[in-house]
């Protein structure tokens, strides 16, 4: 739970430290088109809830266009949980990895009803794909 304790006032410094820690591996993984293509397949797990363009349609989650680098809970027309709105970070590889592993652990009380992706490789592929959106 180190991420949680770093939130809030400490946020800026803590986040920087975190993203540096994971920087080397993420920089490589994320821009690999073959990996992104795999991630697109794995997006099967997300497509019911998330549109990839900015029209959410009947989906119950926020659209994910440009989500990589987007500040958390940033869409005006989506009713985020209070728990997610309270957060103060932007979605980078590290945060997305923790989120996709188990959303409840990164943000307890979030309304994303998703059990998580256990495989690190699959999460990497998904994140590579999210980066292309």
């Amino acid at each position, binding site marked *: 739970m180190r991420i949680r304790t770093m939130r809030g006032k400490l946020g800026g410094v803590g986040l920087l430290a975190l993203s540096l820690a994971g920087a080397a591996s993420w920089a490589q993984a994320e821009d690999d088109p073959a990996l992104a293509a795999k991630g697109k397949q794995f997006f099967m*797990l997300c497509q019911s809830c998330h549109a990839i363009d900015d029209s959410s349609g009947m989906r119950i989650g926020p659209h994910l266009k440009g989500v990589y680098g987007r500040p958390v809970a940033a869409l005006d027309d989506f009713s985020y949980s209070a728990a997610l709105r309270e957060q103060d970070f932007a979605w980078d590889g590290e945060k997305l990895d923790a989120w996709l592993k188990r959303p409840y652990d990164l943000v307890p009380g979030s309304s994303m009803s998703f059990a998580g992706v256990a495989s690190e490789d699959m999460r990497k592929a998904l994140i590579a794909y999210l980066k292309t959106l």
Partner: protein
Amino acid sequence: MVTRRNLIKGAAAVPLLSTLGAPLLKAAERSSVIVVGGGLSGLYSALLLADAGLDVTVLEASQRIGGRVYTRDGVETRPEFGASQIGRTYARVINLCSRLDLKLIPEHRNLMPMSSYLEQNWVRSDQWADSPLNRMVGDERKMQPALVGSQLLSKFNPLQNLDDWLNPKFADYDVSILELMQRNNVSPAAIRLAGIGNDLYGSSALGLMQEKTRGLFDARFGNQEVEEIDRPYGFANRKLEGESLARINNIEGGCSRMPEAMAAALGDSVQTGKMVRAIDMSGDRAEVRCVDGSRYTADFVISALPFSVLRNVSIYPLLQGPQADAVHKIGYAGTTRAFGFIEEPYWEQDGFEPSFFTDGTIHMLWALEKRPDEDKHRFMVVFTEPAASRIDQFPKDQALALMESEIARIRPSTKGKLRFLDMYGWSNNTFIRGCRHMFKPGQINAFAREMIVPHERLHFAGEHTRRSDFGMESALESGERAAFEIIGRA
């Protein structure tokens, strides 16, 4: 054999159902998958796998696809024998409906207020709290008889996240409803009432709490607070301004339109009348054998069968350990319902409320508010366990006659005013054998975590293999997981 793929793409495609030992041509580099069971979970996994470019065949034992989704089209009110209610957080169901061009409409099935007939006495809901028939103690007395079991389970439910029920931290709740209640000093009178519509001995409290937690999630989603329950059994359905969906929705034209549209999208790859009897993975592909002698091979197989009937299928190599226990021992519970019209409002004669709950033969009669387009109220007689298993022991016409005469006996004002249309008992569906899985006490600890692990080339879907959802959404959740597992391997 004609498959959807070679229909669409012509002769160049490789037949999916290549016989044993046939050389694998170009397209066969892709995995082909056999889905056993054409309920929602099976159809959804097939659809997702077809989306991903894999060849899929769905084998369904019955002549009707859809399983526990069953709109009885031939009957006047087109009753839903199975599932119909779609919550506003059913992400997959909602998105699937939009993909299949099915329209969601707010449900009209509001229950009218409910009196009780207990120990041969009538009591109105507004007189229950002070009635001498109410032998519960303290705060318990405020609970309506029909809701005692459900409300106590909610009260003692410690789960927060949707998958907490699988967390060993809560292992201690995997006990019978009876044990949970006794542990919490619930009065004997309250336990007795809870036992009318619940299997006190045979259901794991933790399993039911999983559903409570999911229900609470639905009620709170999008920062809306849970509404006050203003009548026994359920909420007044409503649609908030600015929201696209009501709390509870139905599919226009009937719930069966959904599996039908899924099957139509899958085309020839869905085959009915194909009861699978064996799944043999001892060779280098899986072979699936049906009772009619037909055989199919594939790289992977998804069982989308309830474990109540998967246990009749021979699986090689044999299942082992907790998984074998799960398939062969997990509990199932029945639900039986009868449907009809109320010809005249009998409650105006006897002063009790239109709906009722009883500790007798009938269990519950739900009188439903009139629909805007109808001049009569509808009713449903609803049996859960153990009353469902009792009524299911009779053939249909006897069961209907028994209901009618028993309702008239305890409530004479109904005489000649209930017109029964049809009934359906899910334990009597021999392809399914129940309304739903129901973990027995201790079974979550014993095998809930292990039961979904793929066995050789066999993956498991079906509502009983849910991780965090319930109802139809759990069937889709499980189909999605199984499809995803296979895509990860292929």
